[in-house]
C-alpha cells in the first residue's frame, strides 16, 4: 500500500508538467473519426457518388438510422464484433445490394454499398455484367492503377468496379 501511495504522490507532482500538452483522450480505441463525413460536395466540380434505389438515395457516410427509415427492413442482417474493441460492424443485405456500417460513438454510419446483381445499377447506369467500355464511357479514365479494377473518386466517396475478363463483377461505393 505504501508503494502505491508513494507512486501516487510522485505521479501527482510530475503529471502536471507532462500533461500540459495533452488534449483529449488519445488512448487507442476502435478508431474512426468522431463525426460522420460530409457526403455533400467537398471540393472539385463533382459531387460525391450516391446510390439510388426505388427513388431513395443512399450515400456512404449517411447515418444508417436514416437509411433504414427509408429502405425498410433488410433481407438479412449480420453483425461482427471487432476483435478486442467495442462496436459492431453491421451488414444489411437487400435484394441487389449490401450495406455495411461502421460504429462512431452511439451511431452507425454507412461504410460501403456493394451492388450484388443486375437488378440495380449506379446512377450513371452501370450494373453487374456491364462491359469495361460501359464503365469508361460513363466515368472516364480510371484513377486506379490496380489491374482488374477501375475506380473513381468524387467528394468523399470512391466508386470501385472489379472486372473479370472485361466484365463488371463487383461495384462498390466506399469512403475516399
Amino acid at each position: 500500500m505504501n508503494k502505491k501511495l508513494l507512486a501516487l504522490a510522485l505521479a501527482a507532482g510530475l503529471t502536471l508538467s507532462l500533461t500540459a500538452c495533452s488534449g483529449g483522450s488519445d488512448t487507442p480505441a476502435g478508431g474512426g473519426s468522431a463525426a460522420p463525413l460530409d457526403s455533400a460536395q467537398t471540393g472539385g466540380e463533382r459531387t460525391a457518388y450516391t446510390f439510388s434505389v426505388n427513388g431513395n438515395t443512399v450515400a456512404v457516410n449517411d447515418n444508417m438510422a436514416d437509411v433504414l427509415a427509408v429502405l425498410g427492413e433488410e433481407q438479412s442482417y449480420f453483425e461482427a464484433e471487432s476483435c478486442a474493441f467495442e462496436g459492431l460492424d453491421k451488414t444489411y443485405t437487400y435484394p441487389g445490394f449490401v450495406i455495411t456500417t461502421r460504429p462512431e460513438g452511439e451511431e452507425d454510419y454507412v461504410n460501403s454499398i456493394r451492388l450484388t446483381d443486375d437488378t440495380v445499377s449506379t446512377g450513371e447506369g452501370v450494373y453487374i455484367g456491364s462491359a469495361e467500355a460501359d464503365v469508361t464511357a460513363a466515368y472516364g479514365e480510371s484513377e486506379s492503377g490496380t489491374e482488374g479494377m477501375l475506380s473513381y473518386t468524387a467528394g468523399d466517396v470512391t466508386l470501385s468496379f472489379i472486372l473479370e475478363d472485361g466484365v463488371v463483377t463487383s461495384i462498390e461505393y466506399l469512403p475516399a
Partner: protein
Amino acid sequence: MKKKLIFTGILWCVILAAALWLLNALFMPKYMSEIPEGALIAEYYNETAGHDVVFIGDCEVYENFSPDVLWREYGITSYIRGSAQQLIWQSYYLMEETLKYETPKVMVFNVLSMQYGEPQSEAYNRLNLDGMRLSPQKLAAVNASMTEEESLLSYLFPLLRYHSRWNELTGEDVEYLFHRDQVSDSGYLMNVEVRPAENVPEGKPLADYQFADICYEYLDKMAELCESHGVELVLVKAPSLYPYWYDEWEAQMEDYAAARGLQYVNCLEIVDEAGLDFRTDTYDHGLHLNLYGAEKLARWFGAWLTQHCPQVEDRRGQEPYETIWAEKSETYAQRKTALEAAWAAEQKEDTPQ
C-alpha cells in the same frame, strides 16, 4: 563539496528515473476489466516451464484452441502467443523471441494474417507490442508495424503516448500498478457465451487475391527460423466463418505448404469431423469459437498432432508438468464456472418475465 554535489546530482537522477518509471506504470493501460486482449502478450513471461507446442497468430488462435484440453486429453503442453489482429511480422518476431526462452517441438501459425500486407492501426499495434519485453525482437516488430503517425520512441517510453490518460485514470490503474491478474489460460482467452452464426456474408469479389510479397517473405523467414532451431512449423487456418477465407487464398497456402514441405491444416474443412456446431459453439456469430467450440477443436487437433507430429510427447506423469498443469487446470475450471454463472445470470436478466 564537489563530492556532495555529485552525490546530490546522482540522487536526483535516481529519483527522477524512479518517478518516471512509476508514472509509466501508472499511465499504461492495464487491460484488466476492459480489453483483456491487451494483457495477453505479457502473460507469457509468467510461464515457468517450456511447452512442446506454441501457437502464434491472431484472434483465431487465442479464441479457438484450448490448451487445457490438449493437456488433459493428450498430455500435450502448449501455449498460445496470440493477440488481436496480430500481423505476420509481429508473429515472426514473437516466434523469434519465444525461441530465446524455449525450443518447442512444434510452432503452429494461423495464416489469416497473410491478408494484411501493411501496418493496419496503432490501436492494435499497441495491444500486440506494448506487452513485449524490451528486446531486439520488440524493436524490430515495432519498426515493421508502425503506422505513419507512430514513433519508436513512444514504444520505448510509453509515457509519451499515454500521459494524456491523466483524466481517465481509475482505481484499476492504482490497483494494478505493480501486478496484473492472469486473464488467459496458457494464452487462451475463455468465452462461454453462445451467439449462433446466422446470415454470415459471402466474401466480396477482390481485384487481386494474391497475398503480398512481404507476407511471403515473413512466412519464409518463419520456416527458416523454425528449421534452424529444429522446430516443425505447422500452418493452420482456424475454422472461423468470418472474415471470409477465399478459395484463392486457400490454394496459395496449399501450394506454399507443399513447396516448403510443411504440414497445413485448414480447419474449415474439418468442422463436421471435429463436431463443431455453429449454432452452439460460437460466441459472436461465427467469428470465434466459444469455450465449447475451442474444446472440441482442441480435441480434434490434439489427435491430429499425436498422429502427424509424433515428436510431441505425452507429458502426463512427468514433473514439473504434472504439477504445473494440475494447477492450470484448476484455474481453468474455476474460470469456466465463474463465466458460466455470469452468462447464465445475463441470460436470465434478458429473458422476459
